[in-house]
């Protein structure tokens, strides 16, 4: 996808939106458009007409004293365009855009939950992230929110001895049975609740209730220094933790305009690709567990252990690598480790032939995954899904190619896409991406530059704001960081890939049979600690 040069996009925006709001090219991605809050629908409509592949990346809300700032970050032609508006704090009302871009549904519900902005016309503005018994008018992300007294009260809702499943007739239609897949479920690693309305075998409606793993990371990030924030942000998700660290660190480096040495960029690429390898192997094995293929789960996770050992060798911990820091990497890549990495990757590459053969020939596996949860290409674009879920439906989106970071600009690799868009395609895309990642690591190891791997960085960050995107194993990960000249960030916004992919599961599950729900669900590679933050 040819990256348009800055002027053509900005000139198009100037021509179409010039009269309505002023355009600041180069700020917050390709360009920032400041407009009145009433014009948000019109501007986004214009952006959509300009590029039908446009979709919303994130909706950042921040407390500006007496006003609440809202920023729609839109991705057109692979680049970020930010639409900035402001809403007064007394009656924070703005028109919804879910009818134009259905993918914005969750983003608006979260902004309503945490900042108290009311989106008129939004189909269902209920609680998304905060617990049910959270006091009504207390919005945590506002600066003046008093949060001390709340956290100690232990909510004691009705406590019956039944395991967490209620099977009751739904009020609307007697035939519909309401099955709740409760927070504690052996097959799901994390707590989240889906209440499925089932008519016989087909699923009529899925109502997700997330927020069980909401630890308030964005609020906590405002109370810690930038150095401590790297470790906090990294622990949003255990599986893709180096991606979170790099996105945050990259955003701060954009504000500080520090020049990261080449060797650090190459080491970061290796650590990210190792992370992608272990995450993809994990989900392919977990898919085996969900569809009852115990042997595949055991083999996949056995072959994943050498990758964890490599991460441990390079960074000192199997899972949370803690290797990124503002200005470079914390540890150098020792010369005697390079041959170890190469031998392990060669072994893994040989083993992947077996899995490629298995996934394409095992009859019972194909029966469980083919034509399950089909997501068409334009649905994928309308719902703004990212990563392997989008690539399996034929949408060509990969941050490593659209806006190269770390050393991806200098490394030749290809994006893997398929067209079927069903569970089988999503698993195969991940399977092929493993081979691609091995090539990337080997290429990076071969032409690893020498020189420093870290640059000194001041503790006080100059005032400014920046956005940064990284291609995490599950998809495009987006961070927005605003600094106010002190050692503590003003606002950190994190939009994780699973947050964008859940609407895809809701759309594909409805109409399918209930027996398909586990296979469809795991092909999404959901990570709820990412989604809830």
């Amino acid at each position: 996808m040819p990256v348009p040069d800055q002027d053509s996009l900005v000139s198009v925006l100037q021509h179409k939106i010039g009269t309505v709001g002023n355009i600041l090219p180069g700020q917050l991605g390709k360009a920032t458009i400041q407009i009145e809050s009433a014009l948000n629908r019109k501007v986004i409509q214009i952006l959509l007409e300009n590029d039908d592949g446009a979709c919303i990346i994130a909706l950042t809300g921040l407390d500006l004293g007496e006003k609440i700032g809202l920023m729609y970050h839109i991705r057109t032609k692979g680049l970020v365009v930010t639409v900035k508006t402001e809403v007064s704090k007394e009656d924070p009302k703005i028109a919804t855009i879910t009818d134009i871009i259905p993918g914005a549904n969750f983003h608006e519900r979260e902004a309503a939950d945490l900042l108290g902005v009311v989106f008129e016309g939004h189909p269902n503005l209920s609680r998304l992230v905060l617990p049910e018994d959270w006091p009504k008018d207390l919005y945590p992300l506002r600066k003046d929110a008093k949060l001390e007294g709340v956290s100690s009260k232990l909510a004691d809702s009705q406590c019956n001895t039944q395991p967490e499943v209620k099977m009751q007739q739904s009020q609307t239609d007697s035939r519909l049975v309401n099955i709740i897949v409760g927070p504690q479920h052996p097959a799901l690693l994390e707590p989240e609740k889906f209440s499925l309305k089932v008519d016989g075998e087909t699923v009529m409606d899925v109502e997700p209730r997330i927020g069980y793993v909401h630890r308030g990371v964005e609020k906590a990030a405002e109370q810690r220094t930038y150095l401590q924030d790297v470790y906090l942000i990294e622990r949003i998700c255990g599986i893709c933790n180096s991606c979170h660290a790099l996105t945050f660190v990259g955003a701060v480096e954009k504000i500080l305009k520090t020049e990261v040495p080449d060797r650090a960029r190459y080491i970061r690429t290796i650590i990210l690709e190792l992370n992608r390898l272990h995450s993809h192997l994990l989900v392919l094995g977990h898919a085996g567990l969900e569809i009852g293929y115990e042997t595949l789960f055991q083999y996949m996770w056995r072959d994943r252990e050498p990758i964890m050992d490599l991460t441990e060798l390079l960074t000192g911990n199997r899972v949370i690598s803690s290797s990124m820091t503002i200005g470079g990497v914390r540890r150098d890549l020792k010369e005697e480790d390079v041959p170890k990495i190469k031998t392990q990757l060669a072994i893994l590459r040989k083993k992947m032939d077996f899995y490629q053969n298995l996934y394409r020939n095992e009859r019972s596996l194909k029966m469980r995954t083919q034509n399950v949860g089909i997501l068409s290409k334009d649905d994928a674009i309308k719902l703004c899904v990212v990563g392997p879920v989008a690539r399996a439906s034929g949408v060509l989106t990969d941050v490593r190619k659209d806006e190269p970071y770390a050393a991806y600009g200098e490394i030749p690799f290809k994006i893997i896409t398929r067209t079927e868009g069903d569970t089988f395609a999503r698993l195969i895309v991940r399977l092929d991406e493993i081979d691609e990642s091995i090539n990337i690591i080997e290429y990076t190891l071969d032409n690893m530059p020498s020189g420093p791997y870290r640059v000194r960085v001041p503790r006080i960050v100059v005032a400014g704001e920046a956005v940064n995107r990284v291609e995490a194993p599950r998809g495009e990960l987006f961070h927005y960081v605003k600094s106010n000249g002190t050692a503590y960030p003003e606002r950190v916004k994190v939009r994780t890939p699973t947050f964008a992919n859940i609407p895809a599961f809701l759309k594909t599950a409805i109409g399918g049979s209930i027996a398909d729900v586990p296979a469809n669900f795991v092909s999404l590679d959901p990570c709820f600690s990412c989604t809830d933050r």
Partner: protein
Amino acid sequence: MKSLTMWARLKSPWVLHFNSGACNGCDIEVVALLTPRYDVERFGIKLEPSPRHADVLLTTGVVTRQCAERLKRIYDQMPEPKFVVAIGACACSGGVFKGNYTVLGGVDKVVPVNAYIPGCPPKPEAIIDGVVKLLSSLESSKPEAKTSASA
């Protein structure tokens, strides 16, 4: 007869895993225990689907407000000789997220905990070491003193 049931309890500790708000770093290490490299089935440990079947509750993650009541309910549903192992810094004390508005802190604020395994995340061997230490502490202490664990 008493030593026979004690031998049986030590040799087949069935495990239930509940994540009450973790970054799933510890959860993938707990699931990695079942895989060929660590294979806790050597010690008779089986991952059980329902609280009714389990003896040891492996909890990971900082207890969020929403999960606190679920954790309490699951602990109540487990039949009597039951133990709780807190895995990872978050479960032991809240770790990096301590003090946030939806975080209650460690698991011991909701259920009595018998063994703590620090680490972020602890290596699978450290989790096995924790379970082995828990089992050997049962062996030494008298059977009836084991469930009145330090709150």
